[in-house]
């Protein structure tokens, strides 16, 4: 049970700024993900929180106590990194039991805990194995198990599920979340997988090139992405970006793409107040567009179907809209020949307008 506060945390490597004055509060008993592509600074941040890396400047507080200069041991945290820390000479069982043995639990208690943890991570059958005989997945599970079993109040995880197969990952992320809520841990979770971050977190910190792009609850960053980067990084299939110009005509306002234009008169005041120029990016998620055989309204836009992917529960349609390409979600029963004409209507509540120059969201 600890609140973590990072204040203007900075890490430089020569000319490279790996983490650029990051200020972030992880509230007590919550799970926060640091999300971003490789090189965004998420693992560097985690290593500074763990005490494995000394910040160039800035401070780290646990419950208001400045721990910036404390050793990793004194920070009392659980840590699981992508490269597995296991004792090579010990069996899986002994590796997992180690933390409890140090706490001087009885043999019977240790045995009970180890077996239930092994069952939880689906590694009961390998408890007698030594690390050199284990697969990547087994090593990862053992290193996770030996940290989880000690129930640390702060848990730092760096891509702990990265080597597990897809179906098991989907299961594990929910299980880890349940465990975190049950023992009320404060967790910082590093991942490049936006689905994982969205699924597990109370709040997500989206990072890019050492900078914090946005910090918010999953629903918030999905519905109101602050920048083009966040808009494009969160959600799958990803948001469509259509380059447009903002045009005014008498009292009306439009986003003009060349082959079609969208009436955005209702957004005119905010666009005029925030935009730095005329060039805009219209952002629309695939689920906020709908495909029709015939134009459903005067605002509907013609598209040419390029391809579609029948995914079972739905289809992802790839289509040409003027000179842009877009992805549109359609029912599983969707069928079309390539180059066939269809019509698309936008859900106007789901559109985003991004300033092309600053790449910041306006709407």
């Amino acid at each position, binding site marked *: 049970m600890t609140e973590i506060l990072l204040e203007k945390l900075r890490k430089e490597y020569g000319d490279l700024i790996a983490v650029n004055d990051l200020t972030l509060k992880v509230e007590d008993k919550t799970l926060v993900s640091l999300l971003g*592509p490789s090189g965004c600074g998420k693992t560097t941040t985690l290593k500074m929180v763990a005490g494995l890396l000394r910040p160039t400047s800035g401070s780290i507080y646990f419950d208001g106590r400045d721990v910036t200069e404390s050793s990793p041991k004194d920070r009392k945290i659980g840590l699981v990194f992508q490269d597995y820390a296991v004792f090579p000479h010990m069996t899986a069982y002994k590796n997992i039991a180690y933390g409890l043995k140090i706490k001087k639990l009885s043999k019977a208690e240790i045995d009970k805990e180890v077996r239930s943890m092994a069952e939880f991570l689906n590694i009961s059958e390998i408890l007698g194995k030594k690390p050199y005989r284990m697969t990547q997945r087994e090593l990862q599970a053992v290193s996770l198990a030996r940290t989880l079993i000690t129930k640390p109040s702060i848990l730092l995880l760096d891509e702990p599920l990265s080597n597990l*197969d*897809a*179906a098991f990952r*989907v299961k594990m*992320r*929910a*299980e880890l*979340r*349940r465990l975190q*809520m049950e023992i009320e841990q404060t967790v910082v979770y590093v991942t*490049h*997988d*936006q*689905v994982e971050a*969205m*699924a*597990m977190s109370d709040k997500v910190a989206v990072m890019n090139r050492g900078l914090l792009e946005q910090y918010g*609850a*999953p*629903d918030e960053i*999905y*519905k109101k992405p602050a920048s083009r980067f966040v808009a*494009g990084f*969160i*959600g*799958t*299939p*990803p948001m469509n970006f259509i380059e447009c110009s903002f045009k005014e005509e008498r009292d009306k306002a439009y986003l003009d793409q060349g082959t079609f234009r969208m009436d955005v008169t209702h957004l005119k005041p905010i666009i005029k107040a925030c935009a730095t120029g005329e060039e805009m990016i219209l952002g629309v*998620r695939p*689920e906020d567009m709908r495909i029709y055989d015939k134009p459903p309204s005067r605002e509907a836009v013609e598209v040419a179907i*390029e*391809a579609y*992917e*029948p*995914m*079972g*529960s739905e289809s*992802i349609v*790839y289509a040409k809209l003027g000179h842009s390409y877009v*992805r549109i979600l359609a029912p*599983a029963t969707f069928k079309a020949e*390539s180059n066939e004409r269809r019509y698309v209507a936008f859900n106007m509540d789901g559109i985003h307008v991004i300033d092309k120059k600053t790449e910041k969201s306006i709407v």
Partner: protein
Amino acid sequence: MAGMRLEAVSKSFGKKQVLKDINFEVKDKEFFCLLGPPGAGKTTIFRIIAGLEKPDMGHVYIGDELVDETPIAERDISMFFESLALYPNKTGFENIAFPLRIKKLPEDEIQKRVMEIAKLLRIEHVLNRLPSTYSGGEAQRVAFAKTIVRPARAILLDEPLSNIDALLRLEMRIELKRIHEQLGQTFLYATHDQAEAMAMGERICIIDKGEIKQIGTTEMYDKPKNRFVASYIGSPPMNFFDCTLKEEEGRLLLDQGSFRLDISRFSKAIPDSVKDKEVTLGVRPENIHLLDGPSKDSIEAKVMVTERLGSKIILDMSVTGKDMFKVVAPPDQLIKPGEIRWLQFELDKVHVIDKVTDEVLV
């Protein structure tokens, strides 16, 4: 261009049998996917088709020709590996031209062919540059160009997208489909990723532990033949519940212990031999609907975990506190862990699976 056929192919490495009686036919110009977990035998099948490995039993045909004794070079197959490397000291052009230079094609034909392929893959702009200057997507495309530049009877692609980031993978899925169409080539594509297979394959062949589990179109999402296929296709995966099949007052019931489901409508499809026996109920997360209050046939369950993905919410729910299963709900639902909800299974979409044979009965 040609189809290919595997006939009763088996293969063991030492005591371990990695392929058991593999039979399938790939049609000429088809996009055919081999789908299965790592270790299922996909790469071994590729190696046997390419001639890098000899089967213990069975035959391989390319087109109508039996190629069991045909050496690798004469099989006329092109293969793309996950880790296919580019020569760092050669330009894009020279990398792509390399397989043609080995074949000692005349220079003007090499020029023509490389330019054609570069245009198809939209990489004309990298032809004069060295690989160290490429983005991930450009490197993938150049490597792929190298594979398809030489006319071959078929192209084998072994996990070509597994090491690239998620967004690029979505893009390459569309690209590969387009290239396949324009090239008019036979593609045999191996992957462990069910989404990739669903998105691209005209037909999919699902393999597990060296055995074929089902061959078909994406319709197998709704019509899986066995439990393995039911569990492997779809994400989040299908939920399974152990049940007893019971007949009561002319009704057919699935009894799970904590809930019961009336499946009388499927009476005819279920053989008498499994009645009164243990079966597995299979339901996809999107085929379980949330109700605000109890109704006839609804099941009361507790919300354990909520995963808010933006476009939908995935819920981990439980009837007893132990049996965890997943439900997909619309994104605007106000729902929190610890709350109680009532669930309705979409009866048209449930599956009943024989526990002994793993065969899907309904």
